[in-house]
């Protein structure tokens, strides 16, 4: 199956997709918040962030010093555009499948009910 335009190979892996999705809702988020929200280890998150930073999808800024040192992460415009394109591509795949795709995919329902299984699956994957 061919992938639609906008599909981003870099964002596609589940952990990176979650990181970018979280950052897309924020101007910036600090490192511990991202780590705790996605149930990742410091090293796993750091690795994913550096991969995305090298691609120019996000900026990592360190503030302060000593024990008050903070790391803030911000999605760049390039990263935001890539994420929106990737989401649009996923949407196109689902819609392209027509009747074979789950019917509820196009319906705006409260996220909590539907995302519970996905969340569990994601956390399991992220923990690896």
């Amino acid at each position, binding site marked *: 199956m061919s992938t639609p335009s906008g599909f981003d190979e870099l964002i596609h892996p589940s952990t990176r997709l979650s990181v970018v999705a*979280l950052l897309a809702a*924020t101007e910036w988020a600090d490192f511990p*918040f991202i780590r705790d929200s996605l149930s990742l280890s410091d090293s796993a998150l750091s690795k994913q962030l550096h991969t995305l930073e090298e691609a120019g999808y996000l900026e990592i800024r360190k503030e302060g010093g000593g024990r008050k040192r903070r790391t803030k992460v911000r999605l760049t415009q390039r990263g935001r555009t890539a994420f929106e394109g990737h*989401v649009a591509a996923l949407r196109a795949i689902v819609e392209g499948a027509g009747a074979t795709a789950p019917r509820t995919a196009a319906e705006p329902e409260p996220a909590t009910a539907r995302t519970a299984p996905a969340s569990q699956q994601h956390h399991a994957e992220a923990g690896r």
Partner: protein
Amino acid sequence: MSTSVDAEQAWLDLQRIRVPEERVYDEIERCAHRDARSTYTTAAIMWVFIASWGLDLPEWAFWLVLAGYVVGLGALGYHFNRRSRLRLHRSRHSWRQFAMFFAGMVVTAATILLSDRLVESLGLPFGSLIQATVSAGVFVLLVGPANRWAVSTLRARGARAVLEGEAR
């Protein structure tokens, strides 16, 4: 290199995107519900500023106190901004937050003016202290519920924004 993604996987990925966004809104709502310290500190600074009006300060001293008030509020904003773990993206804010900001200013100003009139008409002693206490009290009572009201629709708005973004 290209990745082949079937519709089911794409649908799962679309659901997966919502999970971290929910964590962002959880954090925003948690701050709106529990972070009372900033409200009390702001009310305390406001109380000191309004109470100082009763000291019949010379003009230069009034401006000095006003400058101190502004600097105090600025420092407080800076401090709580440093403590926050994230900032919501500008596209996710709702009109309610701006309405709450302006309505808060109007209500606070109206309370100060009304309490001033009340104190004057009743001829109460320590008028500025009463005025400061009433104004700070109204601020504390209103800011919590107003803040919760302002953030209550952000989650639904965020979900809608994602769907609209997907639809483009």
